[in-house]
């Protein structure tokens, strides 16, 4: 590049000759050079801006174009990355404690119609009414020939029905895939499982949502795709549950009972192995809730969990266990059992007269109301309340089914001394058979609180202590005596050393005003084996009457006890319990001297 000098000699000389200032020339040249530099810099900056603008434009166009493509393209499954077995879109299965299926899903189809596409709507309507007898031909005809564009015909189809509809060859009848909840065991454990229904429905799929029982309690867990592959494991044992239901059904028929329930619970963990309530229902076709009559008589009603009843003499165990714990009595203390016992205008009577006195064991074995009430008087209002509260008898059970919340015990409004006395033998406080089972399990567990649960979980977690070990052991000995020489003699099962307590409670009239004379609720709460408690079984029969004798018998010893004993006989081998010879009482060493 040729630089123009700032002070060209020729111009300077000429300017000197003319007497001008040569610096002007230099300044002029500097100005021109600066102008050139400015122009160059400007050009360069402009071109840079242009390039930058083009780059940005391209970038924005690329991003915008990609967004447009993404927005307009059909979504597709990623082909390269293999989806593992960890994410499953269907509802998780429910299995029993040994992994046998209690609830699963099957693929089925729903049937819908698009009347505008139909060729022969009249023929289709009559043919559909033939295939599905529960559909009304006139109604279908009205839907198909009217202005509707879309009609649901049937929610679930069997494969045979689907084929029959297919054979009609009607282009306006269409199938949509549906996932259906199946309970392969039918009525088994219906009250535990609950049932499912369809939530939001579309043509291609429908939500399956739990409506009751475990299905509703664990709805979120069962629907979560990340856990879809892992079945929900319950503590229920399928074969034990089947045996319990079978025997209970037979017992309900033989004893002419209106309803029945049974709870079988592991003592150590509180896990429920079988929970039955009769009458029951089929969760595959869950009936609608009743709109009339007593809700308690509906098959949907879970008597073992929702039903709160005055359970009667089975509560004596708690009174006596507490008295033993407090040291007020020991098993051989003599208790005054002269009746009737008067309190204000109220009289407490025994079923029959058991003599003027009984030992504490005798009060329990003979089931003396008077004796128990006397012991309760010594315990007092506050201590009794605190003890029953610590057993969990004031709160609904924390069982993992939605119905458990409604099984809240009914307590007396004012806990007077009379309440203390009546509650001591099981009147005036209503609780569910499940509460009873958990409380008996607590006593059988050496006094550590047992919380009922339906989940199979680890062993070896102990609750807080609510009863001393000694009192618990003494109570268990008494419960065993009730069976060997008391009111529950029919409960004896060879090899399993059953211990338990009967309870026969008169049913209160529905509208208030006293109790029925001839309607009872008979209960048997048992523990087996008594010397090494493993299981608690509570059987409750509603309005039983045993008519094989000369006069009808309603006491639990004649109704609930034989049923419970048969359940124990059937179930104990299934639970893997070996029959054992009960350890006898160790003979006391007598000190002799001469």
């Amino acid at each position, binding site marked *: 590049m040729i630089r123009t000098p700032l002070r060209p000699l020729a111009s300077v000389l000429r300017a000197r000759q003319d007497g001008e200032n040569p610096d002007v020339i230099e300044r002029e040249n500097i100005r021109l050079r600066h102008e050139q530099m400015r122009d160059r810099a400007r050009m360069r900056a402009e071109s840079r801006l242009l390039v930058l603008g083009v780059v940005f434009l391209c970038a924005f166009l690329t991003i915008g174009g990609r967004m447009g493509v993404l927005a307009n393209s059909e979504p597709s499954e990623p*082909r390269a990355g293999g989806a593992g077995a960890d994410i499953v879109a269907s509802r998780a299965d429910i299995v029993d404690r040994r992994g046998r299926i209690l609830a699963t899903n099957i693929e089925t189809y729903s049937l819908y119609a698009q009347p505008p596409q139909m060729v022969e709507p009249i023929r289709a309507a009559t043919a559909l009414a033939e295939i599905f007898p529960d559909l009304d031909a006139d109604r279908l005809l009205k839907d198909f020939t009217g202005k509707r564009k879309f009609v649901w015909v049937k929610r679930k189809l069997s494969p045979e029905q689907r084929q029959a509809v297919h054979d009609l060859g009607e282009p306006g009848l269409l199938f949509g895939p549906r996932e259906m909840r199946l309970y392969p065991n039918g009525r088994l454990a219906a009250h535990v499982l609950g049932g499912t229904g369809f939530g939001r429905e579309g043509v291609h799929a429908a939500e399956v949502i739990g409506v009751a029982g475990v299905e509703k309690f664990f709805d979120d867990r069962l629907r979560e795709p990340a856990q879809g592959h892992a079945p929900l494991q319950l503590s229920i044992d399928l074969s034990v549950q089947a045996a319990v239901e079978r025997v209970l059904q037979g017992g309900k028929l033989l004893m002419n009972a209106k309803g029945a329930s049974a709870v079988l619970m592991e003592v150590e963990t509180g896990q429920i192995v079988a929970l039955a309530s009769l009458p029951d229902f089929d969760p595959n076709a869950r009936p609608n809730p009743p709109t009339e009559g007593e809700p308690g008589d509906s098959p949907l009603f879970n008597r073992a969990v929702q039903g709160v009843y005055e359970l009667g003499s089975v509560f004596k165990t708690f009174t006596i266990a507490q008295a033993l714990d407090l040291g007020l009595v020991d098993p051989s203390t003599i208790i005054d059992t002269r009746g009737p016992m008067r309190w204000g205008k109220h009289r407490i009577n025994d079923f029959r007269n058991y003599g003027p006195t009984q030992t504490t064991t005798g009060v329990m074995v003979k089931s003396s109301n008077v004796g128990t009430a006397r012991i309760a008087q010594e315990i007092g209002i506050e201590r009794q309340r605190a003890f029953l509260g610590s057993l969990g008898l004031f709160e609904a059970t924390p069982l993992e089914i939605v119905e458990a919340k409604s099984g809240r015990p009914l307590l007396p409004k004012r806990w007077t001394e009379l309440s203390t006395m009546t509650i001591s033998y099981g009147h005036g406080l209503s609780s569910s058979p499940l509460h009873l089972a958990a409380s008996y399990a607590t006593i059988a567990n050496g006094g550590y609180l047992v919380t009922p649960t339906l989940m199979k979980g680890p062993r070896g977690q102990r609750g807080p202590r609510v009863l001393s070990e000694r009192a618990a052991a003494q109570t268990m000995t008494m419960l065993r005596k009730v069976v060997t020489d008391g009111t529950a003699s029919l409960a004896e099962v060879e090899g399993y050393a059953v211990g338990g307590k009967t309870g026969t409670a008169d049913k209160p009239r529905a509208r208030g005003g006293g109790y029925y004379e001839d309607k009872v609720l008979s209960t048997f709460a048992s523990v087996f084996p008594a010397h090494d408690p493993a299981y608690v079984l509570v059987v409750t029969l509603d309005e039983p009457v045993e008519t094989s004798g000369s006069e009808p018998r309603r006491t639990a010893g004649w109704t609930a006890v034989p049923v419970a004993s048969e359940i124990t006989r059937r179930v104990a081998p*299934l639970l893997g319990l*070996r029959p054992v010879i009960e350890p006898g009482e160790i003979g006391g060493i007598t000190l002799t001297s001469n």
Partner: protein
Amino acid sequence: MRGFLFVLSAMLVIGLAFWAYRENYDTQAAQARAAALQDDIASARERLQMLNAEWAYLNRPDRLRDLAQINFDRLGLLPLRADQFGRIDQVAYPAVDPLPIVNPVELMAREAFP
């Protein structure tokens, strides 16, 4: 020399292009195969679930009880009872074989029959 390099790089480009082309088609084929396998897995899983459901349905306690009753004279099945539990010491030891004869002696009846 220069021409040789030119030809060599051209060959290289052609070779790489061919390689990329083949890899592309291999990838697509592998993806298609993976998708087909995914489909197979999904349908196998569906089938498995259906079979499990059917197994559970066929093994439902009601049905087994009815079958045991219908076939009672052939099978004689009854509910499990407590007295059916055995103990290890109730099982007899297997009979011991007689000791083997290692030095057999040849014998012959010499007595003459009358």
